[in-house]
């Protein structure tokens, strides 16, 4: 049904797709996996006839017997939304914020069919019912919905005319784990019901293994391997595929075990955190309680995972622990002393922070030396320029970066290297605890495995404890000693990681574990 041959895409003088050949039968699900920059999304956009401005596309894309590359724009526009549907990664930006969801679904119907307003509305209602939004009125706006609901609206727009081909580009990446599983099931169910084909683009090997009939592995604008899912993962014939599979599963080995009897280095006792309520004219609304009283302890050298979905209060707890926000009740103790926003700044030295997105957490106008040295501000004694430089170089060496890196700017590094810079910044003051907020979520599998190795090594060598805030159960299982599961502002389960995973007590924990794509499990289910 879809036949791509020798697809080449050049942007400027750069060859981005280097001659792809891909085939897809009616009713099939094709998974496309690869790292960021491998050309997955470009392939999808080429099929839709929407390559970036200034790009030249060669080769052929035959869809239902016609070559899409030869078609004029008006013809392509008629196909898009009608015969070919598309679901993007980020539903908030893919939906129009000033149009009701009903109007956005109905618009597609009115564009492609001679339908009256009422018929289009009826079709929109039916499509929204199909994607599980039966109790959401058509008159809602995107901002009134949750992330998962928004993605369902985006899917409704894509499937309202029952397209023969659906392309989903990382459709679940921006969503919570449990929502991810639901959205994936929904996509698969819809294409099965309509007898349509699905191209599922993802960086997540396990997710593709779980959902796709056929898999294509992309690297640097080429397909290095493709075939039936079970056979491909059984054989792992191509070294790159083998490496991807290994990196997805690989977890660092740790030599040092924390002492369970040691006094906690970071401790929260019944921490209560309120947000100010919605503000009226000249008055404040009733405060909203986000954390009703949370306690946790982290011992020296321990790696603790804090998992939960967005809105569970993870970030709020983290900000309270870091004393960036005041707490309303209870207390945070760092290295045995009470830690509040007004504590002397020297006390902050013991607790440092690494963020999810190294692009956003490094000031683009600062050199690496200045960035890494920023927390040195917390030390009592002022360092001379040469002493400062020496410390920066030493800590860069610890995270595996050359000393010349100090003179460069963040944009001159890759994503993984930037995260190393962020880790170096946290390490430079020799903290007792580092809080990592989704610190590996934005990284490709191979880079992620390297950064996790680095973190484990540093913990072994320096005895630093980590608080790993994440939604990725795979990382939690591989790296942490203990796990805390958070839901609606409360820690609903905590215990040694192995025990929690083997025998989750709380239903929510069980749900999180079951929803996480797992390569071994996906392949076992196939066999």
């Amino acid at each position, binding site marked *: 049904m879809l036949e791509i041959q020798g697809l080449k895409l050049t942007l*400027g003088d750069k060859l981005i797709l280097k001659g792809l050949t891909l085939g897809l039968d009616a009713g099939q699900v094709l998974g496309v996996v690869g790292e960021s920059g491998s050309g997955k999304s470009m392939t999808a956009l080429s099929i839709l006839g929407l390559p970036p401005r200034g790009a030249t596309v060669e080769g052929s894309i035959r869809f239902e017997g016609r070559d899409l590359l030869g078609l004029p724009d008006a013809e392509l526009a008629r196909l898009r939304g009608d015969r070919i549907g598309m679901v993007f990664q980020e539903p908030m930006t893919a939906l129009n914020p000033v149009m009701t969801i009903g109007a956005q679904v109905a618009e597609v119907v009115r564009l492609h069919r001679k339908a009256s307003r009422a018929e289009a509305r009826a079709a929109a209602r039916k499509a929204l019912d199909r994607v599980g939004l039966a109790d959401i009125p058509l008159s809602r706006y995107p901002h009134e919905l949750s992330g998962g609901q928004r993605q369902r609206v985006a899917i409704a727009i894509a499937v309202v005319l029952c397209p023969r081909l659906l392309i989903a580009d990382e459709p679940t990446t921006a969503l919570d784990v449990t929502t991810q599983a639901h959205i994936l099931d929904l996509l698969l169910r819809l294409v099965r019901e309509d007898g349509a084909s699905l191209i599922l683009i993802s960086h997540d090997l396990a997710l593709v293994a779980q959902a796709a009939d056929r898999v294509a592995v992309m690297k640097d604008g080429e397909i290095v391997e493709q075939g039936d899912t079970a056979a491909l993962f059984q054989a792992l014939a191509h070294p790159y595929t083998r490496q991807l599979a290994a990196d997805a599963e690989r977890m660092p080995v740790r030599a040092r075990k924390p002492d369970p009897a040691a006094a906690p280095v970071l401790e929260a006792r019944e921490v209560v955190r309120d947000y100010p309520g919605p503000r009226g004219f000249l008055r404040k609304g009733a405060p909203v309680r986000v954390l009703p009283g949370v306690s946790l302890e982290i011992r020296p050298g321990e790696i603790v995972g804090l998992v939960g979905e967005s809105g569970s209060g993870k970030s709020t707890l983290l900000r309270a622990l870091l004393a960036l926000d005041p707490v309303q009740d209870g207390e945070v103790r760092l290295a045995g002393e009470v830690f509040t926003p007004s504590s002397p700044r020297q006390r902050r030295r013991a607790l440092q922070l690494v963020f999810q997105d190294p692009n956003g*957490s490094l000031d683009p106008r600062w050199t690496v030396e200045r960035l890494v040295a920023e*927390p040195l501000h917390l030390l009592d004694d002022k360092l001379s320029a040469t002493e400062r430089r020496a410390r920066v170089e030493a800590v860069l060496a610890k995270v595996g970066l050359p000393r010349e890196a100090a003179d460069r700017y963040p944009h001159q590094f890759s994503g993984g290297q930037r995260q190393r810079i962020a880790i170096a910044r946290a390490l430079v003051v020799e903290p007792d605890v580092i809080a990592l907020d989704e610190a590996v979520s934005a990284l490709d599998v191979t880079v992620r495995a390297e950064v996790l190795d680095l973190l484990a090594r540093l913990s072994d060598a320096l005895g630093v404890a980590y608080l790993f805030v994440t939604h990725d159960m795979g990382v939690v299982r591989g790296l942490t000693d203990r796990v805390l599961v958070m839901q609606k502002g409360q820690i609903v389960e905590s215990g040694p990681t192995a025990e929690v995973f083997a025998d989750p007590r709380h239903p929510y924990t069980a749900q999180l574990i079951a929803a996480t794509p797992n390569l071994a499990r996906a392949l076992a289910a196939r066999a």
Partner: protein
Amino acid sequence: MSRSRLSPTLIIGAAISVTFVAAALVSLVWTPYDVTAFDIGHRLQGPTAAHWLGLDHFGRDVASMILLGARNALSVSLVAVLLGAGVGVPLGLLAAASRGLVDELVMRASDVVFAFPALILAILITAVLGPGAINAVIAIGVFNVPVFTRLTRGSALSLWTRDYVLAARAAGKGPMRISLEHIAPGLASLLIVQATLQFSLGVIAEAGLSYVGLGAQPPAASWGRMLADAQTLVAVAPLQAIFPGLAIVITVLGLNLLGDGLRDRLDPRLDEER
């Protein structure tokens, strides 16, 4: 960056602006004729080889007057922009850094200043303080302040949500230090663009104030004053109004083109469209 480095807008705008500044600087050391020397015999004479732009109603050389007017326009609007930015930017940074009551006070105060039409406010200020170049500077500077305050606060608020600011806070830096080290440098390009546009508004405002007699006082030359003098004679000597008028139009156009060109090059908000 795929955008061309130098757009025609930027080149033309920069060329006019440089000419303007050069004219003002040249007038410091040299003008074709001494404008305090009256040649009453040849008053209102048209352009000649000796006097390229002719003589005015007192018999002063118009070309020299235009050069001196450029100096006056440049100094008044430059100082007014510096005054506006000098007060407005710190206020905006302060409002963004402190939120709460201070933010409310600063923003409501700037609302009040904004509520008056700029030129009317300037006339009010000069009417109270008396006419003169320095009071014109203060008047124009005052209505520049809220422009910079708002722009700074709005953009600073979005920078405050960046992770690197949170990182700096976790590194124990206070709001003032973060404002100086992380926020202000991030706003620099935006402020340069706005300053250029305010500069051109300043030239118009200075001409307007001098036109109604509240700007630079004689014997200092000013384009607005030249226009006012020429107005009564427009039926007899139309060229008298055309030259200072052209000077204002070309200068303002050039500064606006420069501002737009700089915006295309520097404004980080346009970068996201790449």
